[in-house]
């Protein structure tokens, strides 16, 4: 059973059961079992190198692009097994979008960045693409800042704008889940506040699973918090309970800053 104490009415969107993960021979995740609820923001905290990013990336299998990996255990989306359930990884990545730690816009125009995904799936109609671009940029709280310069290069934007552009780009393919790997770690406090506000809005519509280094951030934006340590899930529960009344000694030490 997952180590949690939820009394959630929402359905389980993503489920991990006894998930083991290795890069080659290096074991990184050890028997993780965890439920992630739809339309909630779940934050993963823990010291560097404990496997947070790896766990996140399992849900859209993005690490398989560049690394030799071994996975054992079950991962499900809406009750369907991600590895054996007949979901092609390309389809999976459409349903499970990802925002990376470092903003990584394409060296193309702002507009081309946003419509990159829809164009992949064969949307050609200019009006439809324009509509998707506007809607996605609005959802990412970027529209007002860029609506007059959509043809300009994305590389000319500030870091915070680039990260919101990456969020807009992910939203444009209309995903169900949004994975965010320390989305604010490269940003200044003002940009960070904007992204946090955004996550707060996004979780009304999407399932958000995020990694954060920053415990205040986890406390501010997430409904659930999971604490990882050395590739294991130590404790998971409603964010408020985790921060006020942790059950595990290690969780308590970590959130009170005694290690990590």
């Amino acid at each position, binding site marked *: 059973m997952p180590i949690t104490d939820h009394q959630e009415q929402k359905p389980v969107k993503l489920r991990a059961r006894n998930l083991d993960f290795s890069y080659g021979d290096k074991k990184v995740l050890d028997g993780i079992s965890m439920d992630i609820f739809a339309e909630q923001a779940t934050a993963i905290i823990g010291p560097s190198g404990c496997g947070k990013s790896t766990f996140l990336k399992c849900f*859209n299998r*993005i690490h398989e*692009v*560049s690394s030799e990996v071994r996975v054992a255990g079950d991962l499900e989306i809406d009750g369907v097994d991600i590895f054996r359930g007949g979901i092609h990884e*390309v*389809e999976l*990545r*459409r349903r499970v*979008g*990802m925002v*990376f730690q*470092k903003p*990584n*816009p*394409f*060296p*193309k125009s702002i507009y081309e960045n946003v419509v*990159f*995904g829809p164009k*992949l*799936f064969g949307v050609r109609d200019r009006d439809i693409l324009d509509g998707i671009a506007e809607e996605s940029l609005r959802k990412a709280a970027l529209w007002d800042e860029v609506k007059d310069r959509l043809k300009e*290069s994305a*590389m000319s934007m500030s870091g915070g704008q680039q990260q919101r552009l*990456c969020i807009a*780009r*992910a939203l444009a*393919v209309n995903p169900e889940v949004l994975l965010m790997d320390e989305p604010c770690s490269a940003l200044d406090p003002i940009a960070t506040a904007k992204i946090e506000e955004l996550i707060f809005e996004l979780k009304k519509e999407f399932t958000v699973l995020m990694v954060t280094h920053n415990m205040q951030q986890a406390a501010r934006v997430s409904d659930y918090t999971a604490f990882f340590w050395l590739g294991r899930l130590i404790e998971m529960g409603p964010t408020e309970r985790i921060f006020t009344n942790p059950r595990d000694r290690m969780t308590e030490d970590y959130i009170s800053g005694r290690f990590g």
Partner: protein
Amino acid sequence: MNLMQKPRMRMKPQALARWTDRIMRCVLWVIAIGFIAVLLIFVGAILKQGWPVLNLGFFTKMPESLDAGGGIKPELFNSIYLVALSLAVSLPTGIGAGIYLAEYAGQGRVLRFFRLCIETLAGTPSIVLALFGMIVFVQTLGWSFSLRAGAMTLALLNIPVITRVTEMSLRSVPPDLKEASYGLGATKLQTILKVLLPYSATGILTGVVLAAGRAFGESAILVFTAGTNVSSRFPDFRLTAPGESLAVHLWYVTSDGTLPDAREIAAGTAAAMILVLLILNLGVRFIDYRIRKRTR
């Protein structure tokens, strides 16, 4: 002991750093200016000698074999046509092989062999390729000295260069851009076509220009495969036509010695080649500038 006492004649670290910086900068400037000077003197000398010969007639007349006053019209055409034909073969092959090596190939034994082949081909002296081309295309396949034999052998010369530069350029694409593309649900092919190739376009273009320039100036290969004659028709697009190029013409008139004005023809031909290369490079710089402006 007095700790405040410093050893004499010792520069402060910042001063030392500043001086090494200045000296290095001077050295690099001198080297750069030296290179530019050599190039200018060299190009200047060729253009100066060739300039009196370069009139409209020179570019629009057929060459003479015994009398003075011949032109280079068919050679100029053949040179450009040969480069274009060879690129038509070497671009798809080289870019395809580069994509394969960068994105699809694993680590197997077949692959090591494939790489070895490319490296060997890249290191083959052009005279060896010339003889190979003559034996295979001219004699065995019976193509005789023709544009197609020349173009195919030039393609062999260029395929390794284009393969390598494509592979390198693709490998230099930041991995986070690749992840971004896959993360949006792109397939491998889509990622290659829409992200990797556009990003590497300038790098690949640079390699292609180098390859084209080398093919344009190549003589040994073409002497043995495209021959030292030109067609009596103009323009002759047939692949079976004899295909003497500018570089071969330059070599031929100076070594044959039957032309009374061989020196002038050679000087004019050399200058014409330099001019074409200059135009080619400027054109490509312009295209490159446009690409960069559009993407960065």
